[in-house]
């Protein structure tokens, strides 16, 4: 479609105007929250999502630090209040979504990782993070950063 677009002074001006409009329409946005998953327990954390406007999540990063040796057995599930929409039906192993790839077995250290994930979160929605650390030996402090676009005009 772009290849057939006649680019001249008029269309270039229109594109510039549309670009400016687009910047009002959509802004990139990072949103970070911290939760603590207690050893031997399971629970939920409720996170108020951005109030600036509708938020289209494009991915998230999870970072946490392991102090002790051993396998990590933390599981997470994200659920939105809007329509009770869950990002998964099951709790997912965090090792699958937040690891720096291969590493030495069970050693302490920082785990982190980003994955692309598309979700629409209405303005002022509440995100519930269910966690299960019932097989874990230590408390894990998770920093979760959601990245995406904010649409203020929708709000």
């Amino acid at each position: 479609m772009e290849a057939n677009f006649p680019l001249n002074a008029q269309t270039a001006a229109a594109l510039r105007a549309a670009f400016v409009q687009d910047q009002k329409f959509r802004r990139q946005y990072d949103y970070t929250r911290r939760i603590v998953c207690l050893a031997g327990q399971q629970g939920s954390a409720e996170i108020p999502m951005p109030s600036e406007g509708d938020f289209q999540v494009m991915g998230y990063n999870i970072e946490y630090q392991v102090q002790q040796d051993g396998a990590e057995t933390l599981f997470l599930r994200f659920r939105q209040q809007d329509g009770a929409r869950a990002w998964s039906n099951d709790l997912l192993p965090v090792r699958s979504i937040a690891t720096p790839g291969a590493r030495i077995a069970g050693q302490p250290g920082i785990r982190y990782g980003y994955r692309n994930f598309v979700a629409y979160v209405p303005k002022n929605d509440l995100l519930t993070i269910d966690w299960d650390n019932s097989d874990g030996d230590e408390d894990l402090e998770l920093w979760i950063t959601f990245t995406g676009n904010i649409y203020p005009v929708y709000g």
Partner: protein
Amino acid sequence: MINRSPLQVTIEHLLGMYRDPAALQLLQTAASVPHKTAMQACYQKDYLLELALDPANPALRTARGTIITDQGYEFFATEIFTSWPEDLAGDAFPLISIRQDNGPGIAWQGTPIDEVERGMIPARTFGPATQGPVARGANLYRVYNEPKIFTWWSGDRSYLDIRAIAQGAACTLSVIVSGIQIDRQTLER
């Protein structure tokens, strides 16, 4: 066009890769509606299956499970990734195959486990290590978090039959199938 959401761009990209007329029509609808509607109606969903494997235990040498996608939503798989937390030495990665039990009835790849191991895919195929030292034979914590892009239209309430074969060491294999879930009612409202 400039104000298309990234999701619409993704859908339009997928349009060029998929041929089923019904799916194509729905995807075209998704790509043409206002992007707020597209955002509301098309979102990502993860499905997990965990399989316990142990080559030393005849009952666990092979494992099989089913992912059932949600009813009332079209599911368009876009990526698969696997991980296993235990130490697996060398090439002790499991083999897997994924088939769809309903719908087109075509295997995603591989052959049924009944046909021995022919056609099974190494699970590591679905997620190469992204960083860190991976040495053959080394005792590493093998976790793969880079999803393999794998597009497959599986439709409404589909059954994904996943089978695995243990190789060399016991482990729990996690298989996550992720994709775009399409709420047809919202989309066509």
